[in-house]
C-alpha cells in the first residue's frame, strides 16, 4: 500500500512542456538531486526555492508535452515534489512518470477547484484527493487495468525481469 502524499499546491496552466520542466541545457545531467534543483526552471525559476518536500504540482491539460526526455519527471521527483495532478497528460510523459515512479493523477475536478497554496492530501491507491484548506474531496481517474497492474507489480523493471525469466 502506497503511503498518502501531502503538501501544498503550486498551480500552472495548460501545455506545460518538457522544455520548461527541465530546459535542454540540463539534459546532460544524470544525477537525480542535481536535476531536481532545476525542476520547472523554464516556467517558474523560483519553484525549487519556494516549494517544500511533499508539495504538489497542479496543472491544466496536456502536462509534459514535447520531448521524450525522461529527465523531466525525474527532475520533478528529484525536487521533492510528491505528485502531479493535471486535467490530462501528454502521452510520453505519462509513460515516463509511471516508469520512474512519479505519482500522477488525472482529475479535471481537482484542477478546477484547487488554488495555489491549498494543502492537499492524496491517497494514491484510491485516487482520492483531499483539499484540507477548502475541506473538499476530489477523485482522480482510475488507471487503465494494464497500467494499474504495472504499478502494482512495482513498475516496468519487475515486468521486464519476469519477461526475461519467461524467455530464458
Amino acid at each position, binding site marked *: 500500500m502506497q503511503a498518502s502524499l501531502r503538501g501544498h499546491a503550486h498551480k500552472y496552466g495548460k501545455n506545460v512542456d518538457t522544455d520548461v520542466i527541465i530546459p535542454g541545457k540540463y*539534459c546532460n545531467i544524470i544525477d537525480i538531486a542535481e536535476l531536481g534543483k532545476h525542476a520547472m526552471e523554464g516556467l517558474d525559476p523560483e519553484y525549487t526555492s519556494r516549494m517544500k518536500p511533499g508539495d504538489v504540482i497542479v496543472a491544466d491539460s496536456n502536462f509534459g508535452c514535447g520531448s*521524450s526526455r525522461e529527465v523531466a519527471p*525525474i527532475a520533478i521527483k528529484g525536487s521533492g515534489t510528491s505528485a502531479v495532478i493535471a486535467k490530462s497528460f501528454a502521452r510520453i510523459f505519462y509513460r515516463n512518470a509511471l516508469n520512474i515512479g512519479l505519482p500522477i493523477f488525472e482529475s479535471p475536478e481537482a484542477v478546477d477547484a484547487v488554488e495555489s497554496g491549498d494543502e492537499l492530501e492524496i491517497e494514491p491507491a484510491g485516487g482520492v484527493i483531499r483539499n484540507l484548506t477548502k475541506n473538499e474531496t476530489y477523485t482522480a481517474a482510475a488507471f487503465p487495468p*494494464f497500467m494499474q497492474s504495472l504499478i502494482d507489480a512495482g513498475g516496468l523493471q519487475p515486468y*521486464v525481469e519476469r519477461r526475461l525469466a519467461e524467455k530464458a
Partner: protein
Amino acid sequence: MPMTLTEKILARHAALDAVEPGQIINAKVDLVLANELSAAVAIGVMRQMKGADRVFDREKIALVEDHFVPAKDAQSAKIAKLMKDFAIEQNIKHFFDVGRGGIEHVVLPEEGLVAPGELIVGGDSHTCTYGAFGAFATGMGSTDIAAAFVLGEVWLKIPASIKLIYSGKPGEMVFAKDIMLKTVGTLGIDGATYRAIEYHGTTVDELSITGRITMANMAIEAGAKNGIFHADAKTIAYVTERTDRDFIVEKADPDARYERKIEIDIGSLEPQVACPHTPDNVHSISEVTRDEILVDQVFIGSCTNGYIEDLRIVAKILDGKKIDSRLRVIVNPGSQKVWMQAAEEGVLGKLAAAGCVVNTPGCGACFGGHMGTLGDGERCISTTNRNYVGRMGSPKAEVYLASPATCAVSALTGRITDPRVEAAVTA
C-alpha cells in the same frame, strides 16, 4: 476486421490477426534507437534489471551521438563516452559517433535502417519521423527504451487513427513545412494525443521523400503517437537503394475505421509561420508580416529540415547575396552525408560566401543545448520543430518556425519576410 495502416503493422508485430483502438499489445520491434541523452539514462536502468546483461540483438539497435556533440563540456563528454563504451561492450553494429553520423533521424533512413512495415521505437520524441517510410515509429522515454534493448519488444496501446486528406497543388514558395505547420495549427498541440495520424491525398502523393519526412517528423507537435504515410514507388526506390533487407509494404483497408477525417486544401495555402511560444500558434505569412518583426538569428537545420533538398533551397536564395548585417545565420547540415553532398554541390560555399556559418551536424541549437543558443530578448526564425519558452536557450527569447525558404529570405532582409515577395530576394 478492416484495419488502418498503423493497426496492420502493430497487429503483425504482435502476431495477431486483428487489433482495435484501446487494445494493449506486446509487439516485437525491428529497431531500437537512442541518442546519448536517452541512452545514458536507459543504460543505467538496464544495469539495474536482473538478468539483463545483453541487448536482445546487436544488429537491431542504433546508437547515435547527436545532442551535445562534439562534447560541449566535460559532463557532455561523460555521457557520450558512456554510450560509446556501452556500444563497444555490447558490440552494437549501428553506432554513429561524430564524423560518421549526424542527427539520428537523418542518419537512420540514409543508412537503410528504416523500411516500410517496420516497428521502430526510439528514445527521442521525433522518432515518429520514420512514418515517412510507411513504418510505425514512436518516441519513448529511457526506461521503456531499456526494456526494448533487452526484450526486443514493447507494450503498446493501439491508437485510434486520424485520417488527414490533402488536396491541391502547393503554390509558389509553399513547401511540406508549410503544409505541416498548417496541420499542427489545425489540430492543436494536443489535438492528436494518443492518436495515429495517417497522411493521405494527392498533395502528399506528389511530395518528395524529404517532404514526407518533414511532415511525419512534426506529428508529435500535435501530440500524436505516430504519423504515417503509405509507402509508394518513391519510398521503395529510396529504401532498396540502401538496404537489401526484406520488408512488407502494408496498406490500410479501404473500409478501415478512423476516429476523424479531416480534409485540408493546399491550393490556396500561403507560407506558414508558427509564432511564439507553441508550434500550433500558426499564422499565414501575410498576416505575420503586417508587423515588422526583426530577427537576431536564422537557423537552418534539424531533423525537420536539415536535408540536402532544404539546403539547396536556401543556397539558391542566398547565392551571390549577403545576409543582413544585423543578424547571424547558423546552418547545420543534418548528417555527415548531407554535409558532404552539400560540399560537393557547392552549396556550403554559397552559404558561407553569403555570411552563414556552417556547423557540424547535430541537434545542439534546436533544443538550446549549444552551438546557437539564444540570449535574453533575442528572436530567431528557425526551420526546427518546437518554439516553446526557452526551447533554444533563454526563456526570454522568441522562436518563430518556418520553411527553409521563408528563413532564407528573412536572412536577407533581417526581418520575417514573405518568400514570395520578389523584391525581398533581389534586394
